[in-house]
């Protein structure tokens, strides 16, 4: 059966036919029936969104025409003409796309036919559907539309998802419920696992971006102004600013740092609000559902069958502020799309540490056991590494031939020593491992501390490494390979016997035939 040749029947072919009505979950009788269009209001949303292109195009056009000494009326007319043209093209394209896109839901499968020039027919068996994610940016939300992504939980290669762009919000919700076998009445029994509390916003600025973000934004702004041809203006402003700074360094430097920080904090807070507003994490039967987003709303589902564990991450600044975040370790999770502000594995925003631990425990189903520390040799190894690095730096500094560097070059090894020792001590203090009833738990990291609870049934093998220096201090690194997340999770610098015992007990029977135990039986 050719997907391209046949004219497609459907109830909603016009641009303003309104929301599709009728039950989504009831496929009509014949095998060729039931094809339906996307939401007819889409061109309106596209038209509104194309105004952004209009603005971006009109400004350089106006500048160009001013340069040519056009009269004001002519410039306005030209810009208006360009605007109408752009909007018309965008709307026409969307109309065509809408007319050529049809989808249907039968008892067995979800099918999508699309493509203006290259016709595509994609079909996903319903029992393979693992996730149904909804996403609506502010414009689509205003028009009551949602983009639906249906994932099959395959290793998320390009195009493994089926995207319905867009459906009306009601249809999208109904489709989600139907595909995930859920009745509308069925509500999660025990309340949400976590729900946004605006007090968490205090953790938002605790990131490196707060201190660098403002500079990055300023740089980007400079670029944008440049591309609009305002080079003379930006150069003049930049030169003026530089002169002022060099003239009054005592006032200017603290002021600049203060402004940088203020902008960074503001940006971080706004980003937090947009990403995590309306945040709600719920457990539905057999899956987790995460909803978030103040302006662009997103609804993500994750089947618990794909869950292989959880990870608590504590970047340095967040850790100092007493916060932590929870991420999933799951199979077939894709990378975040470019326009996403959070990666697909994020389960919570930065939250108080105690809450993060609670959420991790509830998601993984068991509490996290207390961790056993690693031998003192692990710390010694790190201290030696820091000292050797310092020694190399010091030797380098002593050999520096330039006179102008002599005065301050000793600062390099001094800073290296301080930072290296801190890394060594904090890194060694972070190390820990434990075996829970269902999970292998490992913790590591000085700058970003990660506590990983990996489902023992998700372990797909072991890689055990022992470097020359590790061998001399009786340590080794046990790495559990898994299909989920980063692919392997390591217990670093654990005592040899402890590490091997840990691996042997975590997956009974796998490692035992290859172990030699001397002394005790």
């Amino acid at each position, binding site marked *: 059966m050719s997907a391209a040749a046949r004219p497609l029947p459907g109830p909603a072919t016009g641009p303003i036919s309104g929301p599709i009505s009728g039950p989504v979950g009831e496929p009509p009788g014949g095998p060729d029936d039931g094809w339906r269009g996307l939401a007819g209001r889409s061109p309106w949303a596209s038209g509104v969104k194309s105004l952004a292109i209009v603005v971006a195009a009109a400004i350089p056009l106006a500048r160009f025409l001013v340069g040519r000494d056009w009269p004001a009326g002519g410039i306005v007319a030209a810009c208006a003409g360009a605007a109408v043209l752009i909007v018309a093209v965008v709307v026409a394209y969307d109309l065509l796309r809408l007319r050529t896109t049809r989808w249907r839901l039968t008892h067995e499968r979800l099918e999508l036919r699309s493509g203006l020039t290259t016709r595509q027919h994609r079909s996903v068996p319903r029992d393979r559907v693992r996730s149904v994610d909804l996403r609506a940016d502010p414009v689509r939300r205003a028009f009551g539309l949602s983009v639906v992504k249906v994932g099959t939980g395959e290793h998320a290669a390009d195009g493994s998802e089926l995207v319905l762009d867009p459906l009306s919000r009601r249809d999208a919700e109904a489709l989600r419920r139907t595909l995930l076998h859920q009745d509308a009445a069925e509500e999660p029994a025990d309340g949400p696992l976590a729900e946004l509390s605006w007090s968490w916003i205090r953790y938002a600025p605790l990131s490196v971006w707060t201190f660098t973000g403002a500079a990055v934004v300023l740089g980007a702004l400079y670029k944008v102004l440049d591309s609009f041809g305002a080079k003379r203006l930006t150069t003049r402003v930049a030169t003026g600013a530089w002169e002022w700074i060099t003239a009054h360094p005592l006032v200017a430097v603290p002021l600049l740092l203060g402004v940088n920080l203020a902008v960074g904090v503001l940006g971080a807070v706004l980003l937090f609000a947009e990403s995590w507003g309306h945040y709600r994490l719920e457990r539905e039967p057999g899956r987790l559902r995460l909803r978030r987003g103040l302006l662009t709303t997103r609804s993500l589902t994750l089947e618990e069958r794909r869950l292989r564990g959880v990870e608590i991450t504590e970047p340095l600044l967040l850790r100092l502020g007493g916060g932590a975040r929870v991420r999933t370790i799951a199979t077939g999770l894709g990378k975040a799309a470019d326009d996403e502000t959070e990666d697909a594995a994020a389960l919570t925003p930065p939250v108080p540490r105690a809450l993060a631990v609670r959420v991790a425990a509830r998601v993984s189903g068991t509490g996290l056991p207390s961790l056993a520390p690693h031998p003192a040799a692990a710390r010694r190894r790190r201290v030696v590494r820091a000292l050797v690095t310092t020694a190399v730096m010091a030797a380098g500094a002593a050999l520096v031939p330039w006179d102008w560097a002599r005065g301050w070059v000793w600062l390099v090894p001094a800073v290296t020593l301080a930072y290296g020792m801190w890394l060594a001590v904090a890194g060694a203090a972070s190390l820990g491992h434990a075996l829970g009833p269902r999970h292998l738990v490992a913790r590591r990291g000085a700058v970003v501390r990660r506590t990983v609870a990996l489902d023992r049934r998700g372990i*797909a093998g072991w890689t055990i*490494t022992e470097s*020359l220096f590790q061998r001399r201090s009786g340590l080794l690194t046990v790495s559990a*390979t*898994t299909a989920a997340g*980063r692919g392997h999770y390591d217990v670093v610098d654990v005592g040899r016997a402890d590490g*091997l015992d840990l691996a042997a007990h975590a997956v009974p029977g796998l490692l035992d035939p290859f*172990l030699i135990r001397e*002394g005790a039986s």
Partner: protein
Amino acid sequence: MSATGLRPPRNRADPRAVPWWTVQWLILMVPVAGAAVAAYWMFTERALWLGVVAGVFAAGCLVLAVVGPRASYRVERWEVTDQAVYTRKGWLTHTWRVAPMSRIQRVDTARGPVQRLFGLADVTVTTASSAGAVKIEALDHEVAAELAERLTAITQATPGDAT
């Protein structure tokens, strides 16, 4: 106090692995050593001490090409039981890998052009993990084919979806 350790896997690579690896190392090392000597000859004023450094470097490369494969042969071992594939490799850093049969997704054999001259083949066992591939290097190509067949048979007989 018990001393726990990993025992070495039972089987070694095929003895022909030593000449094969030596050829491989030489293909890499001869140009490096040659380049060092040539650079000394053409681009310097042929100071004696520099000549000694270049000579020692070139000789070191060639010695490494001869010693490296023998050391690898002593260290590299493999074993396949009914439950798992088990390998050891690495000279300074020892690496042991264990992949259970129930998680094996793919078994590949591969033969490079030089490798074919020696009648050798590699077997790569891939699990669902992106980090979990286990490679058994330099087997006799018939042994490798047999092993791959056996592994495929065991894998198919073992239940589980391999994730």
